[in-house]
């Protein structure tokens, strides 16, 4: 039973960044823009979030306050970086995949350059611990308390709050309806007076905010508050894209998909703690490959009747009919 607790406690901080970034990808693609730059935006948000933490970690602020403020910084930086994608793909009608790739390549180089020049390292190392041993009251609930509210991070609770907001925003507001219309049939949306360009800017910006926060949460929950330009976010931005497709561009399904991948990854990294798996004597590398391989299997099974937004990836041109 301890192993189960351990796996769930470790799965959640890994799953939350995936969830947030995949939700970001969902908003962007639902508005009609493929956001392959999620990986880069995550790293950008993580870098500035960690930079903020580095600057205030010695002040008298509490760890959780710093976390919340860092989240804000990361979200704003993610938003700013995503504007580069919006500008190129919405105004300049550029190939969205190419622009996304460029943005992904740009950030590790910038981080390495500045970190090497100013910190003499490959990234940022902070010393603040955001770990929570037990959340008061909630942690006392039998069974569930130990699974979800002990040995955890604040990021987990925030992640689920954001999920709830995302569901309401996408399905219960006028904004959500318009956003979805722009991803399915932008000309129809335009004909009833919706500004497609604005909605797409909104979609990409939301994805920028969420990916920035997701990147910072990755740095907090997975990397212990550190950011490295070399390993970056270890392909989480790309995994999030796969999670989004697996989740069929729907928030709740995305949540389950994210947790599924997080579970596999946690399993891969804790093989030595599980006697049953350890005794099998399989090379650890195979477990590391497992999340990527599972992605492929899942995509192979779901892509045939994929429910992708119809107009995604196609620049909107008012004059085309």
């Amino acid at each position: 039973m301890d192993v189960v607790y351990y796996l769930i406690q470790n799965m959640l901080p890994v799953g939350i960044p995936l969830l947030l970034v995949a939700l970001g990808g969902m908003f962007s693609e639902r508005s009609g823009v493929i956001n392959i730059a999620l990986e880069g935006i995550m790293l950008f948000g993580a870098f500035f979030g960690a930079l903020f933490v580095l600057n205030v970690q010695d002040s008298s602020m509490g760890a959780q306050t710093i976390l919340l403020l860092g989240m804000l910084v990361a979200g704003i930086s993610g938003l700013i970086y995503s504007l580069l994608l919006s500008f190129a793909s919405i105004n300049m009608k550029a190939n969205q995949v190419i622009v996304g790739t460029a943005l992904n390549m740009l950030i590790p180089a910038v981080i390495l350059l500045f970190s090497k020049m100013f910190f003499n390292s490959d990234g940022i190392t902070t010393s603040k611990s955001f770990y929570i041993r037990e959340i008061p009251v909630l942690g006392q609930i039998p069974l569930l308390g130990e699974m979800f509210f002990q040995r955890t991070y604040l990021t987990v609770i925030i992640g689920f709050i954001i999920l709830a907001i995302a569901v309401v925003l996408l399905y219960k507001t006028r904004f959500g309806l318009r956003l979805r219309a722009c991803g399915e049939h932008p000309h129809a949306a335009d004909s009833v007076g919706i500004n497609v360009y604005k909605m797409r800017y909104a979609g990409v910006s939301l994805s920028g905010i969420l990916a920035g926060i997701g990147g910072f949460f990755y740095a907090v929950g997975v990397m212990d508050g550190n950011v490295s330009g070399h390993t970056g976010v270890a392909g989480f931005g790309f995994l999030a894209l796969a999670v989004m497709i697996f989740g069929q561009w729907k928030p709740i399904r995305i949540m389950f998909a994210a947790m599924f991948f997080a579970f596999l990854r946690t399993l891969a990294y804790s093989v030595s703690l599980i006697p049953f798996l350890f005794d099998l004597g399989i090379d650890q590398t195979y477990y590391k490959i497992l999340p990527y391989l599972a992605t492929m299997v899942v995509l192979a099974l779901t892509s045939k009747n994929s429910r992708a937004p119809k107009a995604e990836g196609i620049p909107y041109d008012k004059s085309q009919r």
Partner: protein
Amino acid sequence: MQGNNNSDKPKYNFKRITSHPGFKSLGAAFMAVFLGLVVGFAIMLIASPGNAISGFRFVLLGGLRRLGDVLYFATPILMTGLAVGFAFKMGLFNIGASGQYTMGMFFALYVAFMWDLPGSTHWMVAILAGFLGGMVWGFIPGIFKALLNVNEVITSIMFNYIGMYLVDMWIQNNSIMYNSSMTRTRYIDAGVQIPALGVAGSNVNFGIVMAVLIAIILYIVLEKTTFGYELKATGHNKHAAEYAGMQGKRNIILTMVIAGGMAGLGGAFAILAPSAIAGSSMTYEPINIIAANGFTGIAVALLGNAHPLGTILSATFISYIQRGGTLTSLVGFKPEIIDIVVAVIIYFSAFAMIMNSAIGRFIKARLGKEEDKPLLEIGEEPVEEAEPQNEQETEKEAE
């Protein structure tokens, strides 16, 4: 950048040149390069204002000191560039060149260490093995795309990771190939290394000759064969190609296999290159990092407009500024500055064509008023064309 020869060309000549699509893409490439360098310089100014100018001079001119090395480092990225560009002609975005490159490198290494072959056939077989390794790793995304409709971008990214982890594991578990005290692969015998071209102080080797020949062959395949025609037709309009009776699925798989093979050859050329120091060779360090040459290949392909011959030029150019970039460390910068420049170049090359045509219309509208004034500032040399355009571009961006 260079001295201009402002000769007054006759008007008909100018029109013939500018209306050619090759000229337009060349103009777009120069535009993207120019903007990339401007941003690179700006970042150098932010990072270290005092040294920015001397650092930037290294970026621009540093490569001249090591032309042999420019060609040597251009070899693998020319191959990965061809891998990305060839698939791009069909409308496939092969972001998996890294994995294919790593797989090709491993296959070549395996033959180099584990097989015993006589004399000069050994390195040739090793290169062919690299080709095969890359083809295998290109085949998988091809199958996924053609038969299961999985987006090739996601597949190839996933297989970048899978390939990298597998190769690192295979190497670490093989004591003939892996020197665990150095955490690197052992040195390859001189007999398996590709013959050097004999440029003093440089590792430039026969690989670059083969790479250029392969680029020319790809050009012929694309322009002169039925397969090349079908490939481009599918890239232009998938549905129309299908309707005309072309076998889309077979072509997708074939394209990805060839593209993978190109990247695999790149890996083989890189690892089998001779070393200037006697008794040593190139080595590979399995540290779970995705090969950078694969991603540079994307830049090379986009800058070369996915045209095999353009790719030769762009690979040489990117290798040239990379050589200059390593020299910037003399004045306190880091070679990563070039990765920034390259990323910015890709960013702009994604819409440089559109930008240029907008500017072209702008200039025409301006000049149309003054009827008989020939287009003086746009000469035959595209370098000088990119610059005046750019000033207007910054105005446009500001709007």
